Every structure is written in structure tokens, then in C-alpha cells.
């Protein structure tokens, strides 16, 4: 039985709907929103669950997360240069800071407006923006299938892992760092990546899947589609909290890592809110909270002592963390595009 399409009822309905659409727009104009970038994986969850609510109660403003990888953030900021930037707070790994500062995409951090800045461990107080954590890469493995933790990267090439090894695309920091570390182990240098690509070719028969992004990577672990792969400490902890069978171990060649920092973007729409938001990440209370499971984020404030999973797998004190090997990003950055293209070619089926 069809209802008669009465013109009047339709017009009335449409008018009411239109009015409803106009009103909230007016109402929402009162509540401010800050658009801040964040990384996929551990950090977007930490930001959403811990820092955003704290920010809301401190300032009354909401946060819209832009979950984008560091290099993509730089690309978007560059594309929007001169106009309104797509987000006010940038979330970078060490390599991106250099490029962004050079291009004028970020401004010097107004430390005077940020009470918690001074309490950071001195080496984490950077003029372009405070370092909020460190990331360390190592080997992730499925404890249900692999009972003894792997001791070195070489194990990924062992025939017993045929079809069980996972990799992630080079657009993420994890991907590039793994390639750089592989290159170093195989005797290459920042100007010669052939040893790394040769090793990659030899690895391909063992590779079960290569994830295009970090979400797909997490799915591979959960579905137990891969058993052993490069991974970083925080992502492993976050997955463990979701009952995914994965553990983290540092190979004998030692831990490699980098720092992650927050920055104020040039031409930000809400600069004061942005600084408050960044400052909240430096607050010892917040840092202690995200140091706990499921985030297990490495803190950078001098007022926070290391504990928990960090002390079990990584380092007992901040001095230990200082020993984590870094990369020469100045030399690696310019090659990123070429490396990505080369990688995509090598892995294409």
C-alpha cells in the first residue's frame, strides 16, 4: 500500500530538515575544535582516549584527529602552503622535522607559553617542538608459533619461515627504518642501498604478505597471517592489549630508533589551543598514564620514572634509552621518494 506523494508534506518535510541543518551549525560555532595530526596505531588511540578528554576538560574544546603518517603530513602541509593548513598540530618523526623546518611549514615552538616544556629531559627540548616519545624497532613474533624469541634479523630469511614473514610498505617510518637498518647490517651505506634491496629480493619467497598500511598490518597479526616481522615496540603492546598473539624482542645487533615530536604549524587556525594541546602531552601526569598498558609509551619528562613493559624489554633508565642507535636522516630523507619507488617495484607480484 503506497503512501500518496503529497507535494505539501514533502515540501514541509524538506523545509524542516533544512532548518534543522542550519541550527546545529550555529550552535556548533560556539564550541571550538582543534584539528591535530596523530599517527596511526598506538598514538591515535592514546590521543583519543587519554589526551583528548583531558584537553576537553581543561579548555572545553574538542579535538578532531587527522590520522596521517609523518611524510603524508609534510606533503599535505606543502600542498596547502600559503592557505589554511589542514591541521594545526603536526606529529612528526625525526626525519620530517628537518624538512618541515626548512620549508617553513612549522614555526618555532613558543616554549614560554608551555609550562611543562622546561621539565623535559634537556635533549628532548628542541626549539622546533618538544619530543614526546621515542620509538624503537625490533622483531615482532607470534609466541604461539615461535616459542623462543628470535635473536637476529637474519632469522627472517630462514627457510622454516617460508610464507610466514610480514613486511609493511615504505610509506611508514617503520618501513623506512627497517630498510635502513637492514642496509646497515648488510654493509650498505646511506648512498648505497643495493645490499638492502638484494637482501629484500632474497626475502621475498619468505614473505607472506606486505601490508599497504599499519591498520592492515595489525589485521595480519590478528588473523595470524604472519608470524614474524619487523615491528615497533608500542604497536606490539597495543595489539597485545587486544589479545592479539604478538611479542616484541630486540635483535642482537641492538635497538634502533628515533624520536617523535609535536609541532605548531605555520598559519595555524587556533594557535593557542594548539600549544595547550601540545603542552598536555608533556604533562608528567599524562606521560605516566600513557606509559601504562595498553600504550606503553616511552616518556620524555624528567619527572617520570620508567616502569612496566619498557623496563622489561627495552631499558631500565633514561640513560639506557640514550644508547638506542639513531639514523642519519639528513642523508636518508632526500632518497625517500626513490627508495619508495624502488621498493614498490621490487615487491610487485
Amino acid at each position, binding site marked *: 500500500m503506497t503512501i500518496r506523494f503529497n507535494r505539501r508534506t514533502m515540501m514541509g518535510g524538506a523545509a524542516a530538515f533544512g532548518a534543522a541543518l542550519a541550527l546545529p551549525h550555529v550552535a556548533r560555532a560556539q564550541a571550538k575544535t582543534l584539528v591535530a595530526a596523530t599517527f596511526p596505531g598506538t598514538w591515535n588511540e592514546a590521543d583519543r582516549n587519554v589526551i583528548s578528554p583531558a584537553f576537553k576538560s581543561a579548555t572545553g574544546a574538542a579535538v578532531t584527529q587527522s590520522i596521517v603518517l609523518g611524510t603524508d603530513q609534510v606533503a599535505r602541509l606543502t600542498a596547502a602552503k600559503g592557505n589554511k593548513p589542514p591541521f594545526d598540530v603536526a606529529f612528526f618523526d625525526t626525519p620530517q622535522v628537518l624538512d618541515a623546518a626548512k620549508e617553513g611549514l612549522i614555526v618555532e615552538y613558543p616554549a614560554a607559553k608551555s609550562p611543562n616544556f622546561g621539565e623535559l629531559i634537556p635533549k628532548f627540548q628542541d626549539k622546533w617542538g618538544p619530543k614526546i616519545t621515542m620509538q624503537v624497532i625490533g622483531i615482532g613474533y607470534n609466541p604461539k608459533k615461535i616459542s623462543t624469541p628470535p635473536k637476529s634479523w637474519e632469522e627472517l630469511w630462514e627457510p622454516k619461515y617460508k610464507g610466514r614473514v610480514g613486511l609493511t610498505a615504505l610509506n611508514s617510518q617503520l618501513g623506512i627504518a627497517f630498510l635502513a637498518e637492514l642496509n646497515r647490517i648488510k654493509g650498505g651505506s646511506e648512498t648505497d642501498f643495493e645490499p638492502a634491496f638484494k637482501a629484500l629480493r632474497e626475502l621475498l619467497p619468505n614473505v607472506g*604478505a606486505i601490508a599497504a598500511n599499519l591498520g592492515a598490518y595489525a589485521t595480519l597479526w590478528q588473523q595470524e597471517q604472519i608470524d614474524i616481522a619487523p615491528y615497533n615496540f608500542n604497536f606490539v603492546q597495543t595489539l597485545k592489549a587486544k589479545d592479539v598473539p604478538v611479542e616484541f624482542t630486540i635483535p642482537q645487533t641492538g635497538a634502533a630508533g628515533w624520536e617523535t615530536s609535536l609541532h605548531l604549524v605555520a598559519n595555524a587556525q587556533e594557535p593557542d589551543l594548539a600549544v595547550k594541546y601540545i603542552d598536555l602531552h608533556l604533562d608528567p601526569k599524562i606521560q605516566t598514564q600513557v606509559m601504562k598498558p595498553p600504550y606503553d609509551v616511552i616518556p620524555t619528562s624528567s619527572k617520570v620514572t620508567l616502569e612496566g613493559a619498557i623496563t622489561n624489554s627495552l631499558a631500565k633508565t633514561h640513560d639506557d634509552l640514550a644508547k638506542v642507535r639513531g639514523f642519519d636522516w639528513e642523508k636518508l630523507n632526500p632518497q625517500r621518494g626513490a627508495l619508495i*619507488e624502488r621498493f*614498490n617495484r621490487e615487491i610487485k607480484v
Partner: protein
Amino acid sequence: MKVKGDESPLALPLAAVFAAFFVAPLCVLVLLSLHGEAAMRTWTAASYVKFFTDSFNYSILWETLLLGVKATLVCLVFGYPIAWVCARSGARLQSIIVFLVIMPILTSVVVRTFAWIVILGRQGIINQVWLGLGATEPLRLLYTETGVIMVLAQVQMPLMVLPILTVMSKIDPNLADASRVLGAGEWRTLWRVTIPLSLPGVIAGCILTYTACITAFVTQTLIGGARLIYMPLHIYQQAVGANNWPFAAAISVIFMVAVLVIVGILGAIGRRSETFARA
């Protein structure tokens, strides 16, 4: 006496919008593709040369076009029977079938593809059944071309079924009856009567399905993973990842031209097949 005004000016507003926001951007795209590198200073066909001289690039184009063919065939094999059954059902059953058929199109493609990740994975339902039946190794479906074809077929099947159904509903049932009375069996009737008469619908369905399958960015990327690169992902990687706009524009133009050529060929076949019905 008929007073018929000329209604053609009524299309002008839409034509203006299309000119300003469809034709113009495409022209800008073509112009952009005629630049060399990202610096964009000179006019050159270098981007096109780069595309066609590198086997990496044209193999992506070829595989994308081939993917469309495979997925369209699967849609045809399963979609034709649906249309056939539906055309011969009562009104109520017809409504139900059509409702179920269009439901997937209307559900967000992200949602549907996401469901398939759950189904095709190592611990997904297909593997649960497969291993339950006694197999020792789980099937690798996710991140393989087979998986992509399966999902594409499900996601785009409605585009195959509906045009065929439209044409089938209009086929004069007397023709099939006459065929049977004259002694042809069901299969023969199908082959000699029904299929030729429904051919225009089949072609229309193939055109819509094919174009949808080859441009299905979300499905190809979520199910295909990083190792299966097709044209849409290639465009996206160059545009957003590598920030190489001229090259991305060139790939886009090549892709559009390829689609237009194929649609043109299929459309011509479609028009010829309509003569079967008219006869």
C-alpha cells in the same frame, strides 16, 4: 491543438555546472599531464613517454584491464541466472530479489569490503569451513588476485543483474513458448532465443560492471594489499604519496582514455546486438 514549447533550455543550468566543474577540471588535468617533472615548467609529453617505456607502469594498466575482464565474467556467470530466475518469478518474489540485489550497492563500499576482510582472512569463515572439511593448509585469499576478483564480483554484481533483468522483463514470452512448441529443449531455447534477445542487457551490464570493477579503488586496495598495484592505487600513490602531480595526471588521462575506448567498443557491440531483438 498541441502547444509544444521547446524544453531544451531546461538542460542549460546542469550543462553549465558540468562545463564549469567537470569538463574544465578534466581539461586542466590534461594540461597538467603535459608537464615534465613535478617542477612543472616546460610543456612536454615526457610523462606519457615515461609511462609507456616503463614495464612497471604499463603492466599495471594491463593487469587492471584484465582484472576487469575476469571480475565481469564472474558477475556474468552468476548474475545472468539471477536475472533469469527473477524475470520468471511472481511480483512479490521479484520485489524481494531486486531489493536484496540492490542492497549491496547502497551499503557503503568501505563497509562491504571490510566485511570481506573478516571473511577471507586466515581465521575467516571460509577458512574455518575449509579447515573443518579436513584441509591442512588454510587458503590464501586475502591479498591475492583471486580474493580481489571475488570481492569485486560481489560488490559490483547488482550492476550486471539490473540491466539484464530490465531487458529480460521485456522479452516477449511468446517467443520462448513458440520455440518450445516447435521442439527445442530448454537449453536450446536458452541458447538460441533468450540469450540473443537479452544480449543488449548483457552488454549494458558488462559495460557498467567492467568500468566499476577497474576503478574500484577501495576494494582493490583493501583486499589487494601493497603488492597488487592497479591503476587507481597507482594514481593515488603518485598524486598523494610521491606528490608527482604531472605524472599522476598523465596516468589518469591514460586510464580514462583506455576506459573510453573499451566502453566505445562494447557500446558498438551492444548497438549491433539490438538488431537481433528488432528482427
